[in-house]
């Protein structure tokens, strides 16, 4: 077993936006009993002791926790590289000062679309103007910035304009991430699904922008889940290098794993992070390749894509131990092929608490 390299701290699932592509779990009320500052500090110390390199702070909206700077300070003190994943609407000068004084290394700010009208419609509230202020503020500071936009059917045609937006604000790193279908996004998948034409056009636009902006802007493009021949190497293998701690302290091998109702996840209030990583049933269940059945077991790609995503296998095929139905070799692949056909008449349901 390897050491964990990356820890995602989901500080809270509270959020003032209502994006329909949110991957947070739908039963949000189960997560209201959030870990205390002291409990999070212990998690961060344990993570550093296990060999974790990077701590990502996310949510929900992580800056809704008043102790976010304190927690980033604790991570930084423990030697971890710190990354704040935020939608930016609370990122005023005072918060930014305190985050940077705590040693924050990197901020990822998301926008919903390049223009306020569409962006605010997707977010369900007026947020875009505040995000632009936050982007300006962060650009002037000594901290790395990545701009992120989650892509789905309503904004897929705006990719060119998103790149222009990033150029206008001097963005060095842009992440264009196709929506991943978990939590609220799974509920909304038919309304969020990009069309085949959109996916094909996006590929061309991204290649063109990468060529044109080489050396000035790095563009990461996260492929759509349901359109490839092979599944994504989810988490680079279950329990291989990544773990998530949810707001209430559950430890998951992947941020979407709570969807797998056949597994029981342990909590840092009951057992140490290290013990959970090394020996909890949920982590052991799909670690490595021994759990695989066909077509994964004898597949030459089994240590490239690790059978794809366990959550997707559970959500689509009803068996977390099956091959990811996104794989063209999966016996359940027809489910994904059917889902690829977008339903243009559907509108997504906004996330709500």
């Amino acid at each position: 077993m390897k050491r964990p390299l990356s820890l995602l701290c989901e500080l809270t699932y509270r959020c003032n936006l209502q994006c329909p592509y949110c991957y947070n779990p739908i039963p949000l009320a189960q997560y209201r009993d959030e870990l205390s500052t002291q409990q999070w500090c212990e998690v961060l110390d344990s993570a550093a002791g296990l060999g974790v390199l990077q701590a990502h702070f996310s949510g929900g909206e992580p800056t809704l926790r008043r102790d976010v700077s304190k927690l980033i300070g604790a991570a930084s003190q423990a030697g971890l590289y710190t990354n704040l994943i935020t939608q930016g609407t609370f990122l005023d000068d005072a918060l930014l000062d305190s985050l940077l004084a705590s040693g924050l290394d990197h901020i990822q700010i998301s926008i919903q679309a390049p223009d306020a009208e569409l962006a605010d419609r997707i977010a369900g509230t007026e947020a875009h103007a505040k995000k632009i202020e936050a982007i300006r503020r962060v650009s002037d500071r000594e901290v790395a910035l990545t701009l992120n936009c989650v892509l789905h059917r309503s904004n897929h045609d705006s990719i060119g304009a998103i790149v222009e937006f990033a150029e206008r604000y001097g963005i060095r790193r842009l992440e264009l991430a196709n929506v991943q279908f978990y939590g609220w996004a799974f509920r909304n998948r038919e309304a969020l699904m990009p069309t085949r034409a959109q996916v094909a056009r996006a590929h061309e636009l991204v290649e063109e922008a990468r060529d044109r902006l080489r050396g000035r802007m790095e563009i990461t493009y996260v492929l759509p889940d349901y359109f490839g021949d092979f599944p994504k190497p989810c988490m680079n293998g279950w329990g291989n290098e990544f773990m998530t701690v949810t707001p209430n302290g559950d430890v998951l091998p992947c941020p979407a794993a709570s969807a797998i109702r056949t597994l029981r996840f342990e909590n840092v209030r009951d057992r140490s992070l290290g013990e959970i990583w090394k020996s909890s049933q949920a982590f052991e269940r799909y670690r490595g390749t021994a759990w695989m059945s066909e077509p994964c077991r004898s597949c030459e790609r089994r240590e490239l894509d690790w059978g794809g995503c366990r959550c997707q296998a559970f959500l689509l095929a009803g068996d977390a131990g099956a091959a990811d139905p996104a794989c063209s070799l999966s016996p359940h692949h027809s489910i994904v092929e059917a889902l690829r056909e977008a339903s243009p008449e559907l509108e997504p349901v906004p996330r709500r608490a």
Partner: protein
Amino acid sequence: MSSERPSFGKGVKLRREADGAAILLVPEAALALNPSAAAALGLVDGAHTVDEIVASVVDQFEVEPAQARDDVTALFDRLAARGFLR
């Protein structure tokens, strides 16, 4: 191109492990470094010149000066193109 006295870009950190391994931590990734790359990047501080860094690599490793210069320059240019060095 990186500058004559290179320094790390925003959000870039060199980390030494207990076993001596070196890792360059960058936004959203961690890059494992070989010993000579680690030695070169260990002197990236905005004060040392590229000449001084090359000389230090030549001192520590069995490598011809011209080869060391090529290697260090190529490494620095690759990192500079991604904004990791300035």
